[in-house]
């Protein structure tokens, strides 16, 4: 019995810090919302400028069907774009590692794809592919592509001189150096890029929906703003934000599972 005391002593402490981690920001948010609600009533701020939190909450509940129905195509486009954009970036980075010639000839094109603003290229894609799923997926993919490519390359190159020497002393082939060293070295960089890519993919899908789409959160935002429907605008914003947060969190969970060997630390990110 007495031997079990140390774990008992440490456990409540850990729980309290875990709860406090969530409790403190929640208190701040609650206070801000309360202040907003109070100020709206007290100073008579018109609803189209800033609807009261209670009105937005009401709208969220009443329009939940519409909101969720429009979230589906946005989520679809961002997920597909995320998969295609990151997938092609990873494959291209692997190609670059194996062929300097491929890197020399294709990398400038990849840089160019980044220099053209997504917002500028979106109308073009909508014009070519219509208002369906395709332009949305392409824009989401395009926006994810470059940061992942750059990070993946940086990860592959992040091997130390000692690691290279270690593999040389073992007489490892290029393939073994890639599979047993470079691939693992790239993973923390990949996940740093993927976390950025989640929110970027959602932005890409919404931007595409602004320009021309019959449905989706982006279309709903445009529609609500034309109708001066501020509560619906805020509600759409919250739904898009909540979805992006879930997406971001999901990648974080996968990262913690895949990189369980790594004490969680920051990795420099090239965006």
């Amino acid at each position, binding site marked *: 019995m007495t031997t079990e005391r140390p774990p008992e002593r440490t456990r409540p402490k850990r729980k309290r810090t875990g709860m406090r981690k969530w409790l403190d920001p929640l208190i701040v948010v609650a206070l801000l919302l309360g202040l907003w609600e109070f100020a709206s009533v007290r100073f008579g701020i018109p609803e189209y400028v800033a609807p009261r939190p209670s009105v937005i909450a009401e709208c969220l509940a009443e329009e939940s069907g519409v909101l969720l129905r429009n979230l589906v195509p946005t989520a679809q486009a961002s997920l597909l774009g995320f998969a295609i954009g990151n997938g092609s970036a990873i494959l291209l980075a692997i190609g670059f590692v194996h062929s300097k010639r491929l890197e020399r000839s294709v990398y400038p094109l990849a840089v160019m794809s980044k220099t053209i603003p997504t917002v500028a290229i979106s109308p073009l894609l909508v014009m070519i592919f219509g208002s369906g799923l395709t332009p949305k997926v392409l824009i989401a993919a395009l926006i994810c592509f470059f940061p992942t490519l750059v990070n993946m390359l940086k990860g592959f190159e992040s091997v130390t001189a*000692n690691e290279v020497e270690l593999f040389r002393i073992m*007489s490892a082939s290029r393939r073994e150096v890639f599979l047993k060293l470079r691939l693992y070295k790239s993973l923390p960089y990949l996940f740093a890029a993927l976390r950025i890519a989640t929110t970027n993919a959602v932005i890409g899908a919404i931007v595409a929906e602004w320009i021309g789409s019959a449905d989706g959160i982006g279309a709903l935002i445009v529609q609500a703003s034309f109708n001066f429907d501020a509560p619906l605008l805020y509600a759409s914003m919250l739904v898009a934000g909540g979805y992006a947060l879930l997406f971001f969190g999901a990648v974080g969970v996968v990262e913690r599972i895949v990189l369980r060997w790594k004490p969680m630390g920051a990795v420099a990110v090239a965006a």
Partner: protein
Amino acid sequence: MTQLEHSEVATDPGTRPALSLSGVTVEFESDRGTVCAFRDVDLTLRDGGFLSILGPSGCGKSTLLRVIADLVQPTAGTVSVLGSSPGAARTARAIGFVFQDASLLPWRTALQNVALPLEIRGAPRGGRTPAELLELVGLAGRENAFPHELSGGMRQRVAIARALVTGPRLLLMDEPFGALDEITRERLNQELLRIWQDTGTSVVFVTHSVPEAVYLSEQVLVLHAGPGGVRALRDIPLGYPRDPAIRDSPEFVAVAAELRAMLG
């Protein structure tokens, strides 16, 4: 004995020297012209022997070790490892290397790190298993620990086990305990002597610590700080096994003082 006529590496101990250098010179090209790391190093290490390379930082002792390991090509001179070229010795897996930072792969457990060389070239006949080697270096029970869960000294033990897993005849160590605290370093010095005697491998040990070189070695090669070569090759007149208390003996103190004087 040191000719290169045999492409195969001798695996039977005692017949040839583990290592033989003659006139080995390394020069680097840099912005300010040619820089000489060291010149005309001659050296013979008996099979099963223990040699330390002692010198201040920047004297080229790590470079010399890398010449033996076939990681750096000498500008001039010949190197013979167990009667073969360093390259042949490396591909025959006769060389084990321990880095100053353990250079463990952080995504692999201790056991998986030790097993890495076997994944690349298969297990040698009659060799010790990774688990047996972890036991040899005093890490039984920590097989599944990740490097970040181990102390600096433990990580270096794993690195030694990894270097030994192919059953090398020559173990090269580049300041392996340089980053450790004094207490851990002295304990690992003692353990290294035990491992050396247990495995029968020859050791070349690079260090900038005089007591470490004296405590471990049969012979100490002292290198210059500036461009140059061997200042001295000194035999250490102490028998094995060596007890840690030997550090306080008059013989030990005298040899250490002599080496320290050579370093200037």
